[in-house]
């Protein structure tokens, strides 16, 4: 993200968020979520800036970011595909979907494609147990996913990314 924004721009951005969310510690998680959504990573420079603006130690920022599954600081793709790993989705055939996603994306779980488009992860129960296998693509829920449907989801993401570029 440092390559696309200057420090001043980043700081102004985070200050604007704090303006909206309030200067308290309670704003930290919403700030991290917002940064993650927009930049797909939370690098150390950003953590330092957030810490400065909230007047806390950067270690505090790292400590919180590393705790939550949806705030991990490592760079992620534009589309984070999370496949539910819990029992009902397991019974419903998550393994075949997992294999299809690995093949289609050419990466394993907890990896990101070289083009920066996709990250593949397991997630804990996402509350779609009556209609598994279930997966999340960013905030979007997909249920009763078959290997074919998983490939179609990936294709739709690719098309959306191309449309965004154009």
């Amino acid at each position, binding site marked *: 993200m440092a390559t696309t924004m200057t420090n001043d721009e980043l700081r102004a951005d985070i200050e604007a968020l704090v303006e909206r969310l309030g200067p*308290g*510690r*309670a*704003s*930290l*998680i*919403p700030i*991290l*979520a917002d940064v993650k959504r927009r930049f797909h990573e939370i690098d150390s420079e950003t953590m330092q800036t957030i810490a400065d603006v909230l007047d806390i130690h950067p270690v505090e920022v790292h*400590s*919180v970011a590393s*705790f*939550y*599954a*949806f*705030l991990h600081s490592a760079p992620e793709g534009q589309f984070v595909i999370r496949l539910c*790993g*819990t*029992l*009902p989705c*397991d*019974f419903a055939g998550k393994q075949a979907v997992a294999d299809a996603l690995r093949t289609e994306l050419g990466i394993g779980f907890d990896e990101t494609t070289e083009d920066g488009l996709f990250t593949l992860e397991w*997630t*804990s*129960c*996402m*509350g*779609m*147990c*009556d*209609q*598994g296998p279930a997966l*999340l693509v960013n*905030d*979007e*829920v997909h*249920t009763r996913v078959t290997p074919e449907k998983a490939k179609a989801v990936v294709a739709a993401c690719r098309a959306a990314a191309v449309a965004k570029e154009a």
Partner: protein
Amino acid sequence: MPVIIETQGNALTYETIEPEAGLKAALATSRADLVDTIRDSGLMGRGGAGFPTGMKWGFCAAEKADQKYVICNADEGEPGTFKDRVILTRFADLVLEGMTIGGYAVGASLGIIYLRAEYTYLRPHLNDVIQKRRAAGLLGHDVCGVEGFDFDVIVAMGAGAYVCGEETALIESLEGFRGEPRNRPPFPVVAGLLNNPTVVNNVETLASVAAIMAKGTEWFKSFGTDKSSGYKLFSVSGDCDKPGVYEFPWGITVAELLKEVGGEGAKAVQIGGASGVCVPARDFERRLAFEDIPTGGSVMVIGPDRDILDVAENFLEFFVEESCGQCTPCRLGNPQMLEAVKLLKAGACPPEFLENVKELAGTMQVASKCGLGQTSPSAFLSILEGFGDEIHNRAAGA
């Protein structure tokens, strides 16, 4: 428009509750009487722990503070649970009504819905419902024209951590910290969010409050058993013909439930999610009730062809991932149980190792800091007990 994700099931009582009838009845009651009414209804927390709601409210109401909070725990993360998703999608007004009634009862002016990150798609819907209620005078300044009763609700997002369903971890998360449970006491009703008295109630509990106030305690107590009053929503998944969200009165047997959902022939049912117990077929006459098998409503049906050790392994992988790591019994105990299950699967678990791990599991139940570590051994131990022969035969290479 909310994203409607169709979930099957039976008819739900919530469909028949007249909108705002509960809120109006509550606001026409004195605060003390309102707490007594909820206490008399026998309503117990629907998230799984089963703490009496009226008692919780009574503690919070008795505290003197400038600011109090009502938190709706919508961090529905227990594996196999999705009834709160259905309630928030279809009956969000009832939940907000319940929060408002709670705010009036305990003297809180702000309600917060803590919504799990996986349900982000529900956030616009909830904000929409909140906005409409503000416009209708059901939230905000002088709610329903009751002078001096100000109550508003906001939505706060989780960020992917099962442990935040534990009420003190949830509060830590709302304050911007790692979701690590606090030592109790003090309980949140005394010192919760920002050290102010705070009531934390499950989504379904709050919807039930609105129903009880609309239709009365006698009506509510006409369902269920003496010790478990009312009805309950069950999230049914796994090896059955009709998975979905079902309402049953407390006291239904496992066998009766299985018949309703087309799950006869199951070899076991996991009740209460990963932190619950695995009930083998020979115990299907047991009842779902606080006095027999208490549960937050997760029912995972395990068919005759499933390997019971796969079930145990799946749950333990979950707990190894979701333990917050703060206390030693939970951080170190869960990986040991997982190791034992992997060895059992390979037919290579030394008996003395298994005995040690069972003892460790017992230690976790008493020495872990929060419900996560106290309950994560339940499935492991009940599977060892209920399926000893299957596991033993396998270890012997049969």
